C-alpha cells in the first residue's frame, strides 16, 4: 500500500501580525478565504497530503501568532521543523523589514543542525491590493532573498488564490529535501525517538 510510505513534513509560518499567515494556510489547505479570520493566538496547524515527485507526503503546516512577544513560547512547536515560511505584506514595509529578525529568531529557537542550509521560503502576500499602496517592490524583496542564501521568493494573494499553490509546492519540495538530508546523515533528531521512529516508517 502506497500510504505506508508516508512522510510528515513540518512547516512553520512566521511573520508580523496581519500579513496573512492564517489566510495563506487556509487558502492552500482548504481553498478558502475569509476576510474575518481572528488574530491567531497560540498556534495551530493544518495537515495536507501532497504528491511530490510521486511521493505522498503529509505537510503539517503550523500557523502562529504574529506579535513578537508571543514567539518566546515557540520552542514547543519549532522543533523538528523541515521548512520555515517567512511572510510579509507587500503593502507594509515594516513587515518586510521584520523578516530578518523572524529568520534569526527561528534559527535560535528551532536550532536546526545546519542553520546555513536550513530551507526558508519568503512570501510577499496581499498583491491583490491596488498597486499604489504597494510599499515593497519585487526587486527589493528578491535582492533580500538572494542575500540570505538564495531563499525562494513568491508573491501571492491568499485572497484571490494567486501563486499560493506554487509557493507551497516549493515549500513541500524544500521540506522533503531537508527531511531526507536529515535521514541520510544518519539520525540524531532532538524531538524524540518515538516520533522519529514513526517517520522512519517510510525510510525504505
Amino acid at each position, binding site marked *: *500500500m502506497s500510504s505506508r510510505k508516508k512522510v510528515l513534513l513540518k512547516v512553520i509560518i512566521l511573520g508580523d501580525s496581519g500579513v496573512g499567515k492564517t489566510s495563506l494556510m487556509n487558502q492552500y489547505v482548504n481553498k478558502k478565504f475569509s476576510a474575518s479570520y481572528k488574530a491567531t493566538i497560540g498556534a495551530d496547524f493544518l495537515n495536507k497530503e501532497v504528491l511530490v515527485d510521486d511521493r505522498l507526503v503529509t505537510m503539517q503546516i503550523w500557523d502562529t501568532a504574529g506579535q513578537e512577544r508571543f514567539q518566546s*513560547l515557540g520552542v*514547543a512547536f519549532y522543533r523538528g521543523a523541515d521548512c520555515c515560511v517567512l511572510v510579509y505584506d507587500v503593502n507594509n514595509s515594516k513587515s518586510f523589514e521584520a523578516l530578518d529578525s523572524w529568520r534569526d529568531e527561528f534559527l535560535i529557537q528551532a536550532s536546526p543542525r545546519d542553520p546555513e542550509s536550513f530551507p526558508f521560503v519568503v512570501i510577499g502576500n496581499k498583491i491583490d491590493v491596488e498597486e499604489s499602496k504597494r510599499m515593497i517592490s519585487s526587486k527589493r524583496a528578491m535582492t533580500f532573498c538572494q542575500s540570505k542564501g538564495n531563499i525562494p521568493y513568491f508573491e501571492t494573494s491568499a485572497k484571490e488564490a494567486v501563486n499560493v499553490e506554487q509557493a507551497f509546492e516549493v515549500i513541500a519540495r524544500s521540506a522533503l529535501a531537508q527531511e531526507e538530508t536529515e535521514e541520510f546523515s544518519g539520525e540524531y533528531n532532538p524531538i524524540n525517538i518515538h516520533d522519529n521512529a514513526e517517520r522512519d516508517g517510510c525510510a525504505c
Partner: protein
Amino acid sequence: MAGSSNVQFTPPPSPPSPTASFFDVSDEEEDEYNTIAHAAAKRGVRLLFSKSKVYVHPTPSAKDNIPGFIALVQQKPLPSSRNNTPSISPKNADLSSYLLAWVPESALGDAYSTYVKVDLADDDSPPRQKYLVPPLPETTTYRDPIGLYAFAVPLSQIYSLLVRPPSLGWWFGSLVINTRAGDSFPALFFHDSECESTILQKKKRARETFDPFGEDGNVFWGGDEVLRWLRRYAEVQRSNVDSTVYLINPSEEDQLSFGKAHITDTSAAKSKEPSGPSAQKSGPAPHDAGMDPFMKAIKETRWKVLEQLSKITTFTRRTANEIADNPRVPPQVRRLLKTPEIQTLQEEFDSARIYLARWAMSISEQSERERNQRIWTAKDVLEMENSSVGDFEILDLETGKISIHERRKPVTRKEWEGFFDPHTGRLQVTVEEVKERIFHGGLDPNDGVRKEAWLYLLEVYPWDSNQDERQALMNSRRDEYIRLKGAWWERMVEGDSTAEQQEWWKEQRNRIEKDVHRTDRMIPLFAGEDIPHPDPDSPFADTGTNVHLEQMKDMLLTYNEYNPDLGYVQGMSDLLAPTYAVMQDDAVAFWAFVGFMKRMERNFLRDQSGMRQQLLTLDHLVQLMDPKLYLHLQSADSTNFFFFFRMLLVWYKREFEWVDVLRLWEALWSDYLTSNFHLFIALAILEKHRDVIMDHLKQFDEVLKYINELSNTMDLIPILARAESLFHRFERSVQAIDKKNNFPAPPLSAQQRKPTTRSQTQPSSSHPNSTSNISTNSNAKSPDRSSGPSPSRGISTALPSTPGDNQPDPKVISPELRALLRKDDFWNQNSDGPST
C-alpha cells in the same frame, strides 16, 4: 366459571382493527385467565405491563428510529404453538400464554391510550383493572423488515435476553430477544430520558429509598422494569459467563453451560453468544443472526464516519490494536475494530485514530448529558465527601451537581437592586453573598443588570460605596477618559514626540486597527461597515468602518496611552469587546476594561513570565490532581501545557460562544472560590477529555490539535460545575497533605480572608509570598521559573511510577498551588493607575 364460554382457540384470519373503547377496560370480576381470549372473540388480550419510548433503530440515522412500546401481554396460547413444540415443559406451557412484545406507536391506533395508562400505572403488581388491547402477531422468528411491524414472543420461546444497561458510551440501554429457534429480534433501545414512566420511577426511587440505582448497582433504567416484570412469570437467570445475557427458564443443560458453570474464558463465551446456544438447539444459525444487531448498526455508522473523516486530515499512524485492546473503549467498538474491513481502513487512513478519539468523546458527552438527568441523592453527596484524595473516577459522580447549578437562576436586575439599600444605595448584604449568587447563577443576560454589576466585579465601583459616591466617581472617570484620549489624539495631530515614539505609536495604531477589524465581527454590534473610514491612509480606508469599531479602536489606543509600559498586545481586543458590548458607553467600558486588565496584565508581559507562571501552575495542579494523566502528558511531550495558551491568554474567549463567555467571565471575576478559578476551568476541560487524551493522543501535535478543536464544542455549565468540584477536591487535597506532613494545619479560610497589605501582591512579577511562607519551610523545591514550565518541580508525588524519581518525597504543596487558594490576588495593587 362464568367467562369460560368466551374462550376460543381459533386463530384469527388476520388481525382485525378493533375499536379501542371495546378493548380498553374490562370491569368484569372474572377469573382473569378465562376472560382473556383471542381476537376472534373480540375480547383482546390483557396488557400487564408496558413501557413507552422503546425504539427500534433500523438504520444508523436517528431520523429513522421508530418509537414504540415494550409490553408484556397475557393471552391464551395458540393451539398450534403448543403442539408444535415438543420439548415444552409444563412450566413452559404456562409461559406460552405470556408474551413479550414490541409495538410501534404508529401501529397502536386507539389502543395507544391504554398502553400509556398501563405504562404510567404506578403499581408493582398487575393492574387490578384489566386493560385489554388488540392481540399482537405472535411470532418466534423474525423475518419482517425491521421495525415495521409489531412482534410478540411467547416467554416459552425466548431462550435469552441480551441486556445492556446504559453506560458510558452507550447512552441508550438495550434489550435483544434471542429465541429458542435461534433468531435474534432487533435491539430495542430504551430512550429513558423521553420515557415518562421511567423518569417517574427514577424519581420515586430516589425519594423513597435514596437509591437511584437499579439492580446490580447501575443507574436505574427502563430495562430493569422489564426484567422485574418477567421475573413474575418466568425464571430469569443471569448468565455467569456473560453478564449481559439473561436466560429465560433455562434448562439444566443451559444452566450448566451458561448460568452456574465456572467458565472463566469470557471471550470464548462471548463469541458463542448469542448464536452459540441457539445453534446447539436448532442447527447452525444463519451468519447474520449471530451478529449482534448492535454491531450491525454501529458498523454501518462507523464505517461512513471513518471514511469521510479520514479524508480530511492525516495523523501519524497507530496500530488498530492499540485502541482495540484498550479496556476503556466500549466492547462493541473494540470488537468492531478487530473486523478486517475496519483494520484495512485504519491502515489506509492514518487519521482514523484521532477521529475515533473525537467520536468516542462525543458519545461519552451524550451519555453524560443523559446521566445529568439523574437524581442526585444524599447518598451520592456522602460518597463524594468520603472520597479519597487522588482518585479521579469520583469526578463522574460529581458532575451530577450540574443539575443543581442549572436550577440556579441568574441574578436579575430586580434581585440585584434588592441587594442595595433603596435610600443610600449602599450594599445591604455581604459582598460574599453577592459573589456567591453571581458565581453560581450568573447575571441575567437580558435585563441590563450586567451593565451595573460588572462595574463592581471589575472594581470600578467599590463594593462599600453609596449612590452619591458612585456618581461622583463615574463623573471623574469620564473626565479622566476624555483627558487620556485627548493626550494621544493631540500627539497624533501635532506629532510632538520623537521619531522613535512616533514610529512605535504608529505601529501600535496599525496593530489595534487590524485587530479591531477582526474581533467579534459576527456580533451584530460589530458587524458591517456603514461609515467611511476617517483616515484615507488606513488599510481599511476602502473597506469602511462602523462607529463601534471606531470606539473600540479609541479605547484600545487610550489604554495604550494609559499603560504605556505594557501597551496594546494582541488578545486585548478580545477582552475589550464583551465589556464594550455590555456597557455600550466608551468611557464606562474603558474603565471596566482597565479593571479587567489588572487581572489580565500578567498575560501580556513582554517576557511572557505571567503566562509561563500560569502554565507552570497548571502543570503542578495536574501533577497533584491527576498524576496518571500527568505521566501520560509527559510521555506525549506535552507538559509545557502550551495547548492551553489560548484559553488562558484570553480567558476562553475563543473556546465558548459569546453568551457563555460573558457568563464565564462574571463567574471568574467574582473570585468566589479563588482568584485563579480559570485554571480550574482548564483542569476541568482536561479532565473531561482525559480518557480520550490518554487513550488516543500520543504526541504534542495531537494533543494540541485536539484541544484547539474543542473550540465552540463545549458546554459551559457542566464545565463550571466540574471546575467547582475540582476546586473543592483540590482544597481537600491540600488540607489532607498539610495534615499528613505535620504542618500546623494552616487555617486556610482565615488565611484567605485576612486582609493583606499592598506590598504582598504582585501577581505577575513576583510570587505571592504571603502564602508561600507556609510551604517553603519544608521539602518544597522552589521551582526554577527561568526555565519555564518544567515537570516535577513543585510537587513530588509519591507515586512509584514517577519516572526518574525513585526517592518517594512526601507530597508537598508548591507555592504556585498554595496561591490558588487565594481570593485576593489582584485587588491589592494601587488602583489609581497602571502598575509600572
